[in-house]
């Protein structure tokens, strides 16, 4: 965790055109050139690798279509709901597991084993319980992000420096002051880190569910473009989604990142 913080710091403080930045730009340029070469060569089936121009046009068409934003809104709402439900329940469970040695020992092994299980296998059950609409996607996203958040909150709670709690006791803090002014700020890194991990898996869970069975959302649009073999549109959506998820991750990372630079 400290490592990634330092890396992020290095990335932020490096000058605009450092050798690293140049290499990064060169990689992007290389991929684009290779792509265009393959597209123009005709070695693969037409449209499997559409030209950059076609993809560019598709992106413009996509971004100027109100329908797309509606679907984007559906997916964002699902992810937001999943992150809220999964995050709050994860925080709560994490606090209980981290606060009590007994509870931690009794329950955490299950979380460790269930955590990495691909949640998509529960999708059929979620459909039976919650229907084909957004609710089943929210359920899957919630299941996905609950585990990393609960586990990192529990671990974070155990890592709080005991002397800080003694300081709080010596100044006679009340229970809520203890929680608000010592526990939560002392756990800010594990909590933010948990939310970042949670966002990532909530995104995967929700989108995956949408591609499996749904009638709205970005996952649905992508799989629809695929079945209509509208490859430029599909690539356009993938690229936009890619950029959006990088943006969301960077946003949360920035909350934690700035913190780690300025406040240890």
């Amino acid at each position: 965790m400290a490592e990634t913080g330092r890396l992020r710091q290095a990335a932020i403080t490096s000058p605009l055109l450092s050798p690293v930045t140049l290499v990064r730009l060169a990689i992007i340029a290389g991929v684009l050139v290779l792509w265009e070469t393959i597209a123009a060569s005709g070695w693969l089936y037409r449209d499997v690798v559409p030209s950059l121009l076609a993809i560019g046009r598709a992106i413009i068409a996509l971004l100027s279509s109100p329908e797309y934003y509606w679907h984007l809104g559906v997916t964002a709402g699902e992810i937001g709901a999943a992150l809220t439900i999964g995050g709050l329940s994860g925080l709560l469970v994490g606090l209980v597991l981290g606060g009590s040695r007994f509870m931690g020992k009794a329950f955490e092994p299950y979380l460790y084993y269930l955590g990495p299980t691909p949640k998509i296998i529960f999708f059929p059950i979620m459909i039976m319980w919650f229907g084909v609409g957004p609710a089943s996607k929210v359920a899957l996203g919630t299941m996905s992000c609950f585990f990393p958040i609960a586990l990192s909150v529990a671990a974070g709670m155990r890592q709080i420096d005991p002397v800080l709690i003694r300081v709080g006791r010596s100044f006679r803090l009340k229970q809520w002051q203890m929680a608000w002014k010592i526990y939560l700020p002392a756990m800010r890194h594990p909590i933010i880190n948990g939310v970042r991990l949670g966002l990532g898996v909530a995104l995967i869970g929700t989108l995956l569910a949408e591609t499996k069975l749904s009638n709205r959302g970005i996952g649905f649009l992508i799989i629809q473009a695929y079945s209509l073999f509208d490859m430029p549109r599909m690539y356009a959506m993938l690229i936009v989604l890619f950029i959006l998820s990088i943006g969301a991750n960077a946003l949360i990372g920035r909350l934690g990142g700035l913190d780690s630079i300025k406040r240890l």
Partner: protein
Amino acid sequence: MSVASMATTHTAKTSAQDSAGLLVLDDLSKRFPTPEGTVVAVDHVSLSVKQGEFFSVIGPSGCGKSTLFNVIGGLISEYEGNVTVAGERITGPHPSVGMVFQEESTFPWRTVIENVSFPLEIEGMPKAKRYEKARHFIHMVGLDGFENRYPSELSGGMRQRVSLARTLASEPKILLMDEPFAALDEQTRLLLGDKVLQIQEELKQTTMLITHNITEAVQLSDRIMVMTYRPGKVKRVVDINLPRPRTSEIVGSDAFGHYVAQIWTDLREEASRGLTEDEGRRVTRATR
């Protein structure tokens, strides 16, 4: 003044009732149950710290110094005997007692001024007022200009000064310190000792310092209590009749050397007893 005449020693049986002190320990004992049986950490300790006095407790590792610290600080609420501050029995953290811990204890997510004003924030003092007060104590520990820095940007000695200022900001009647400079190098420790002497002079702060460092104890104290190795009893109380105001320069004087030697004689017995009893389990830091 002859060196020998300056050393006045009391016997271990100083009764608490002798003088009405601000902090009075009357026949304090603390036992801990362990799997190997009951450990007596503090055994029938009586002492009295007067208003404005700088009192040090010195002893080898494992003599129950930290237990004493935790009992007086109210972090251990169950004990035998009586501990009172200004006549009130200690049953939990008391507003009159301010604690400075041995470990790094600044809040890393708060700036220096946010750290120092923390106890005032808890009291509910408005921000402008508590910052003004915090600045006063930041100045006192010599950290002007660092108000808006985070602890991670400061050295270990500076961070300990932040902790000290934070505790002073709560304006305790008794400042209770548990080896606050133990993690620092000797030079920093001596210079911080100067700072503490200066603050002591300015505030007339009643202070109890727990330490295993003889130089530090003699440099700062009016009286030093030497504790025995487990169970922790009072071995001797030594009056330090060195002139005030003092600075760390006093470390070079003959009288200083005499006190150090005298306390070391007492401490040596206890530390070596601790060392043999703990053989292989622990290396006592007091014998360094």
